[in-house]
């Protein structure tokens, strides 16, 4: 821990030496900047329906001899694709990050409790994790969101879709964190310094926070990259099924769903651009995750 500055410069050097990781980091930074600064950069406000004109619908991107206002063309409602994509990427990133934070919060608490206290509590919590995992997140999310949508009505759903999606993905994936943290806690608990801390009478909470939690940091960092990418994919898949973000406040997935109707009529850009952006986003996160995994090389709990 006290070698932090040293570690820091090593990480940076390793990042720059690995060409794939360096490019991924650069792409990811650019995407984050563009997406979170979308209200500043975007030429139009894609959430304001009064700004689109149906006469502008399905204008191809520049190079197709089209309108100079719409660099990447427009969709079926005459909405500027570039603006919609920047805002959409922002929504996808927000969902990915917050859903992962929620997963981590639940998972760390459950994992620490299971690993440190062990016994019946441990087997009970891990059994729940098993059952939870055997229903895949996508399935759980589809059912819950469908029920939610049907019971509150579409209008209300559009209002609260973001919160609902974050909650569903966050709650459905906690076992990933819980298992990793539990494995770390079990390994650390056996070590002598934890015994020593217990012998001098430190309360369990202090031992967990000061001695065990810091050791779970690197595996958590590695799975977090994967989890953010997966959460973004899950949201996009839900959106494609019509259960994600509504088309009035579209995520990248909603934009793709919206564009799929036009693919047979040749308006490829309505699907292709958001799709490319989505893949670039997920790929850069995953490649950085791979690099991080090689760098930190934690023994991840598998199954």
């Amino acid at each position, binding site marked *: 821990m006290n070698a932090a500055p040293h570690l820091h410069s090593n990480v940076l050097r390793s990042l720059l030496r690995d060409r794939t990781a360096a490019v991924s980091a650069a792409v990811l930074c650019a995407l984050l900047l563009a997406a979170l600064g979308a209200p500043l950069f975007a030429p139009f406000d894609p959430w304001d329906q009064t700004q689109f004109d149906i006469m502008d619908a399905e204008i191809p991107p520049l190079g197709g001899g089209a309108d100079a206002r719409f660099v990447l063309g427009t969709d079926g409602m005459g909405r500027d694709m570039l603006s919609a994509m920047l805002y959409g990427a922002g929504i996808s990133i927000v969902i990915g990050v917050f859903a992962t934070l929620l997963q981590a919060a639940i998972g760390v608490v459950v994992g620490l409790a299971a690993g440190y206290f062990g016994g019946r509590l441990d087997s009970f919590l891990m059994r729940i994790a098993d059952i939870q995992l055997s229903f895949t997140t996508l*399935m759980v999310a589809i059912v819950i969101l469908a029920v939610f949508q049907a019971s509150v009505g579409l209008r209300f759903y559009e209002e609260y879709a973001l919160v609902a999606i974050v909650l569903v993905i966050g709650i459905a994936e906690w076992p990933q964190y819980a298992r990793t943290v539990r494995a770390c806690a079990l390994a650390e608990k056996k070590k002598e310094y934890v015994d020593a801390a217990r012998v001098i009478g430190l309360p369990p909470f202090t031992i967990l926070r000061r001695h065990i939690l810091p050791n779970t940091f690197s595996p958590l960092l590695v799975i977090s990259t994967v989890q953010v990418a997966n959460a973004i994919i899950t949201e996009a898949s839900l959106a494609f099924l019509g259960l994600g973000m509504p088309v009035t406040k579209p995520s990248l*997935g909603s934009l793709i769903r919206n564009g799929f109707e036009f*693919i047979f009529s040749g308006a490829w850009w309505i699907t292709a651009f958001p799709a490319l952006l989505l893949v670039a986003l997920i790929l850069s996160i995953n490649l950085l995750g791979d690099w991080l995994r090689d760098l930190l090389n934690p023994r991840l709990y598998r199954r």
Partner: protein
Amino acid sequence: MFAFLLRRLGQAVVVMLVISLLSFSIQDELGDPLRELVGQSVSEETREELREEMGLNDPFLAQYMRFLRGALRGDLGVSYFFKRPALDVILDKLPATIDLVLAATFWILLFSVPVGVFAAVNPRHWFSNLAMGLSAVGISVPVFLTAIFLIYLFSVELGWLPSYGRGETTEIFGWETGLLTRDGLRHLLLPSISLASVILPLFVRMIRSEMMEALEAEYVRFARAKGLREGRVRMVHAFKNTLLPVITVGGVQIGIMVAYTILTETVFQWPGMGFMFLEAINRADTPLIVAYLIVVGLIFVIVNTVVDIVYGLVNPAVKLTGKPA
């Protein structure tokens, strides 16, 4: 072995009870079954009579017990839309989904083992780098995007392959399959590839990393010191140890594949369970949704049990006596 099966059976019953309870409890949330059945035109009094008659006014637990008794006899309610028993509707759609899953599994098995093993044995070979790069891309492209891309390329642009439906099917032993006709296979090609595209890269990576770890193991060095041929060292000593984690994770992945059929079938309008499920959700066809969840839950439970048994057969350290050693 017997004790093991018994224990698994007990677990399966508990899991199925939980699933059925959850599924049943969402029934109330998804609209009024009466309106779905008789429409809006009936008077309020007749409605109330009907409600009483159908037992819709009974306490929740009583309704659930009635539902359970029905479920045990294979009666999962009647689909509002199809006006037929929900289980019959699902069983009609099941073969299409099984075709799809079988074909995707075929691609996965065909490519993941040789590619993963090759990449582990020759980590610096250009082909290994290519395979690892492609698998990183494969993991990052959502399954519905792969499907859309395949449709756009092979159906819209090139016009080589159909973009929707199952095509011609034949029936053997009551199973209606598209695997036996040329037309059926042509229809199956794109959906099965896109379904496999999510799982295949995961398998390639997993087999590679497990195999690399096994190749570094001391028993592999000892196998070489015994003068075994390199092929035997790799395929018997290293690969057999690679299989254990792959079987465990593979079982979970099959469950994930069933969930992904919803996406694939939707894009390709494949007349299977997944597409049916999404339509049922859009139509608020509650009995069909509940029946689907129960059937899928049953499939998960069966697959997990089979995976555990296979794992026990491959791993000598697990005796199938009920507890893992």
